[in-house]
C-alpha cells in the first residue's frame, strides 16, 4: 500500500542552518493498517507526513502509494488519494463559506467545472453526513461560526467523503479540549473502520496511540526507533513505552516526558 524507502530530508542544505529532519526512513504500511506515530517535538513526525503528502519534496528516497511512485508528484495531485487533517482546525475548511459549500467541494477531488452541484439531493446527503455531530440544521451557516471541535469534526467528515486511500491525521485532536478530543477521536475510529481506510495518526497522547490502530511507530531525531504491531501492540502500556524509549535512546526522558503526555 504505502512504501517509504530510504527517505531523507535535509532542510537548508549547505547553509549554517542545515538540519537533517529525516534520516533514511523505511516504512511499509499495508492496506487497512492503522498506524499511530509518536515522538517528541522535532523528532520528524510532521516532516514525515509532509513528505508523504507532498508539502515539500524529499531530498532523496522514494515514496510509493498503491504501486504508484508519487515521490515527485505535487501535493494537489497526491491529494486525490491522500486525505489529511491538520492540528489547526482552521486549515481544513474555508471559514468564509457555508458548511454546505465546504461539503460540496469535498464531494470529489480535482478541478471543478461550471456545473451546479448544490442540489436538494446533495443537501440531503450533507444533512445525513453531519447529523452525528449535530450540525444538520446549520448547513447554511458560515464555517467560521463553528467551534474548533465542530470544525475538526467537519474536516474529518469532508476528508472521508472522497474515500481517500490513505488518511493522515496530523495531531488532529491536539488543539481541542479533552472532551472534544475524545469525540473527534471516536469519530475518526468509526470512519476508519466503516470505510476500511488505511490511516496514520500523529499524537502526543500515548494513551490514544496505544488504543488507536494495529501498528505503532516511535520516532526520534529523524529516525524510526521503534515499530510495534499486532499482538505485541495490544499488550503495550504507557510505562512500557517510556521504558522502551529509555532503553533505545539511552538518554533521560525528563524533558520529553512532558511532551509525551499520558491519558487526558
Amino acid at each position, binding site marked *: 500500500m504505502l512504501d517509504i524507502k530510504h527517505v531523507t530530508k535535509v532542510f537548508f542544505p549547505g547553509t549554517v542552518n542545515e538540519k537533517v529532519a529525516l534520516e533514511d526512513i523505511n516504512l511499509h504500511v499495508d492496506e487497512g493498517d492503522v498506524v499511530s506515530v509518536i515522538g517528541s517535538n522535532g523528532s520528524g513526525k510532521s516532516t514525515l507526513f509532509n513528505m508523504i503528502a507532498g508539502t515539500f519534496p524529499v531530498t532523496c528516497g522514494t515514496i510509493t502509494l498503491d504501486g504508484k511512485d508519487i515521490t515527485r508528484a505535487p501535493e494537489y495531485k497526491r491529494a486525490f488519494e491522500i486525505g489529511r487533517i491538520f492540528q489547526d482546525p482552521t*486549515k481544513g475548511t474555508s471559514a468564509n463559506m457555508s458548511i454546505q459549500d465546504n461539503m460540496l467541494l469535498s464531494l470529489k477531488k480535482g478541478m471543478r467545472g461550471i456545473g451546479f452541484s448544490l442540489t436538494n439531493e446533495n443537501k440531503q446527503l450533507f444533512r445525513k453526513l453531519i447529523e452525528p455531530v449535530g450540525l444538520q440544521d446549520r448547513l447554511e451557516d458560515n464555517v467560521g461560526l463553528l467551534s474548533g471541535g465542530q470544525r475538526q469534526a467537519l474536516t474529518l467528515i469532508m476528508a472521508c467523503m472522497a474515500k481517500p486511500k490513505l488518511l493522515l491525521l496530523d495531531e488532529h485532536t491536539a488543539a481541542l479540549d479533552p472532551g472534544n478530543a475524545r469525540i473527534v477521536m471516536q469519530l475518526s475510529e468509526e470512519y476508519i473502520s466503516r470505510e476500511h481506510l488505511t490511516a496514520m495518526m500523529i499524537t502526543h497522547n500515548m494513551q490514544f496511540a496505544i488504543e488507536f490502530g494495529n501498528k505503532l511507530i516511535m520516532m526520534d531525531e529523524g529516525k524510526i526507533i521503534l515499530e510495534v504491531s499486532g499482538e505485541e501492540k495490544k499488550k503495550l502500556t504507557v510505562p512500557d513505552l517510556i521504558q522502551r524509549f529509555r532503553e533505545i535512546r539511552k538518554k533521560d526522558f525528563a524533558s520529553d516526558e512532558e511532551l509525551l503526555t499520558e491519558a487526558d
Partner: protein
Amino acid sequence: MIEGIFVEGLIFSVMALGILVTYRILDLADLTCDGSVATGAAVAAICITNGWSIPMAMLLAFFAGILCGLCTAAIHNNLHIPGLLAGILTMTMLYSVNLRILGNKANVPLVRVETLYDIFPEAFSFIPSAFASLAGTVLLVLVIKVIFDLFFRCDMGIAIGALGGNEQVVISLGMNPSTLKYIAIGLSNGLIALSGAMLAQYQGFADANLGQGMVVQGLAAIMLGEFLFNSNRISLITLRVILGSIIYKGLMFLGRRYGYLVGITPNDFKLLTGLLVIISLIVASTRIKAAEEKAKKKAVERVMGGRIDA
C-alpha cells in the same frame, strides 16, 4: 445630467466587479487593473475605428483583458512573487503595450464612427437619447451581473472562493491553486478591460492614461457599497458594488460641480479618493470595535443582572 452619472457609475461598476474578484473573493491585491482598463479601451477603439463590429470589438477587449490577467497570474504563480508585485510589473509593461495598440499615439478619438452609445438611442428610439443610453447600459450591466453571480455559485466559482479563504483546502481537494488563480485573475481583468471598452465608447476616445488610479477608485466604490448593507450572498454583494460605484461617481460629480465653492479642483480628486478609501477603512474598523464593545457590555449586563454603574 443625472443620467450621465448613472451611466458612468454603471460602466465603472463593471470594473469594480473585476476588482471585487481579486481583492475580495481571491484576497489578492491586483494592480494589473490600471493597465488592463486602458488595454480594453485601446483594443475596442482600434477595432471600432478599423470598422469592426461593436460586439466583436468588445469581445476582443474582454479577451485582451484576460491575457493581461493571465500575464500577472503567470508571474505570480511561476516566479513565486506576491500578487501585488506581479500586478505592478504587468501594469507598467502594459503602458507601453497600450501605446503600441493605439498606434504610438496617446489617444485615439472615436468620432465619426458608430459606438455603443450611438446604437442605444437608435434601439430605444421611443425615449430621449440620454435615457436610452442609460437603459442600454443598465441592461448590459445587468446581464454581466447575472452571469457573474451564476459563475460564483457554480462549483468552480465556489472553489475560487475557497482559495481566497484558505489555499490549503483547495490543495487538499486535489485542485491546483495556480490554475484557479489563472482563471480568477484572468476573468477579473477581462471584466476590467470590458469596462474600459465601454468607457472609451461613452467618452468618445481611448487614452493611454485612462487607467491611472483606477484600482483605488474601484476600491473606494467597493467600500462605499459595503456601508450600504451586510450580506454574504454573492447576488447582494455584486448589487452592493454596483450601487457603490454609482455613489462614487455621484460624489465625484458633486465635487466637479460644487467643489469650487470650497476650493476643490479636479486635480484634487485622486487625493480625495485615496482619503475616501482610508476613511472607509477607519469607519469599518471602528464599526467592528463598536460592535465588540456593545457585545461586551451586553455580556456584562447579563452576568451582573444589570447591576453595573461603571
